[in-house]
């Protein structure tokens, strides 16, 4: 049965995040031919609405109200509640991002709905769809079905493929204002720790360093390799704890959870806390001096050796490939 599903898109540094497109694809599966309506808030929202339509949204609701410029729980709760009410939507898909994680459970309670967070795959369609999500730090998966009623899921970035952009698609873009009051939390400042460039959560290739890089300086060869590959740089908790890099780069249970196509782990032993953040990557390459390191158990390809020899050699080889 066709049903109307909303997708809350998300921008970061004035770019629409990929997960917004992936959420549209997910919404189409749940909608079973029903309407998929994009929702986008904040500065420049209207200018990104077209991209949501090209990727499969049938129309988009935008708001550039000052109160929605930055994500805050109270403002987004009130705006989304009004959108859900006006649209009489039968479902909502949000990215499992920092703001998505903050908003979804609270909004779900408001809507008296169930919620399935962190979905990585959808099996079947419409009301029969089942949602697959990792549990036990990625060591297992569960398959969940939503009972009748409002369908509400958050999806992990980089897992559910987005639809191909189609520039011939068109749809309405409606600008709305909402009643927003009583904002209890004020954002004073955002201290940027991430390096900019490629977003770790959405990167296709990640080059990550662990304690084996030995110093902040030791990340240099990794950065060179990442430059050649167009990859993002990540790190294990060990490297962050040792102050070789900022916590913004941390991948793991307590850092970011990533699922790139290619994950190159250099000098990372592979503690469970790290594996939880990356073991579902499509292809894993491990480079470590210790042949017994647990990282080799999850690796598709392993090189036992000193990363300071192996990484520069790899950089040279990749240069040859990318040049040809």
């Amino acid at each position: 049965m066709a049903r109307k599903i909303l997708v809350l898109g998300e921008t970061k540094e004035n770019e629409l995040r990929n997960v917004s497109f992936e959420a549209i694809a997910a919404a189409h599966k749940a909608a079973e031919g029903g309407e998929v309506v994009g929702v986008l808030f904040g500065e420049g929202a209207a200018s990104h609405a077209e991209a949501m339509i090209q990727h499969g949204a049938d129309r988009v609701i935008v708001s550039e109200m000052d109160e929605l410029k930055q994500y805050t729980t109270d403002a987004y709760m009130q705006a989304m509640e009004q959108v859900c009410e006006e649209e009489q939507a039968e479902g909502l898909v949000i990215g499992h991002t920092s703001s998505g994680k903050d908003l979804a459970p609270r909004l779900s309670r408001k809507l008296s709905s169930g919620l399935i967070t962190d979905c990585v795959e959808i099996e079947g369609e419409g009301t029969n769809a089942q949602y697959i999500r990792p549990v036990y730090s990625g060591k297992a998966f569960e398959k969940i079905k939503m009972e009748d009623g409002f369908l509400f899921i958050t999806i992990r970035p980089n897992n559910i493929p987005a639809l191909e952009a189609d520039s011939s698609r068109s749809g309405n873009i409606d600008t709305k204002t909402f009643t927003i009051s009583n904002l209890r939390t004020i954002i004073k400042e955002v201290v940027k720790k991430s390096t900019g460039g490629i977003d770790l959560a959405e990167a296709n290739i990640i080059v990550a360093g662990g304690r084996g890089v030995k110093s902040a300086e030791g990340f240099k060869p990794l950065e060179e390799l990442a430059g050649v590959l167009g990859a993002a740089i990540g790190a294990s908790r060990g490297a962050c704890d040792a102050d070789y890099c900022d916590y913004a780069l941390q991948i793991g249970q307590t850092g970011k959870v990533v699922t790139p196509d290619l994950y190159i782990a250099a000098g990372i032993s592979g503690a469970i806390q790290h594996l939880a953040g990356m073991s579902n990557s499509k292809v894993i390459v491990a480079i470590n001096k210790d042949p017994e390191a647990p990282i080799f158990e999850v690796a598709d390809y392993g090189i036992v050796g000193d990363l300071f020899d192996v990484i520069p050699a790899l950089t040279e080889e990749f240069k040859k490939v990318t040049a040809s």
Partner: protein
Amino acid sequence: MNIFVLMKRTFDTEEKIIIENGRIDEEGAEFIVNPYDEYALEEAIVLKEAHGGEITVVTVGEEEAEKELRTALAMGADKAVLLNMEDMDEAIDHYTIGEVLTAYFKDQEADIILGGNVAVDDGAGQVASRLAEGLQMNQVTTITKLDIEGTKVTIERDVEGDVEIVETSLPLLVTCQQGLNDPRYPSLPGIMKAKKKPLETIDFDDLDLDEEEIAAKTTTTDRFLPPEKGAGKILEGSTESQAQQLVELLKSEAKVI
């Protein structure tokens, strides 16, 4: 200050996971206080030391969770409450737990409620925010620093690696992220004292909730392990040769570059 901590007893995810017929085999497994809830407990103790007051640790579960509640009491909580679900006949999910907690907290007049940002077993991260909404309470999630002066609260929170500095006020619910503090271990005197601290059990039936109304809205139909990965290829030869082989394999076999 009336301080509450939400605690979950979880399967230790460092354990090997065995699944039989779609269920996780918990036989002989190790159970622990959810590591993120330990940050919440530690922060509660720090708050009490600075501002005075009382710490109540609350869990939703069954009798076996008393062990983890005692651990929390040994760390420094003053009393513990088990919301016992044994009498609930309907299926339970995060929606249910949120409603049960809301029913309990309606009469508590909490100044601050602290929880972990996620539980390491199911990784859903739902219950704390559901409770905040149930109580119409202000929420700030994934916090890494907390300062309270009177009712004014300054918080640093982790936003995908960046730090957001926010100002807000009590009453407040927060979820705790790694980096907030280093949780203490229960001391021997702490463990002895914990045995005498009050641990109250409230049966589901006493919470004035309609079983059917709060029954689960989601159903887990299966659990499974990730497809077994064949043993990875360990590349041999000189460094140059290994690099060549790897690039070739990534190109022609794995097809990721």
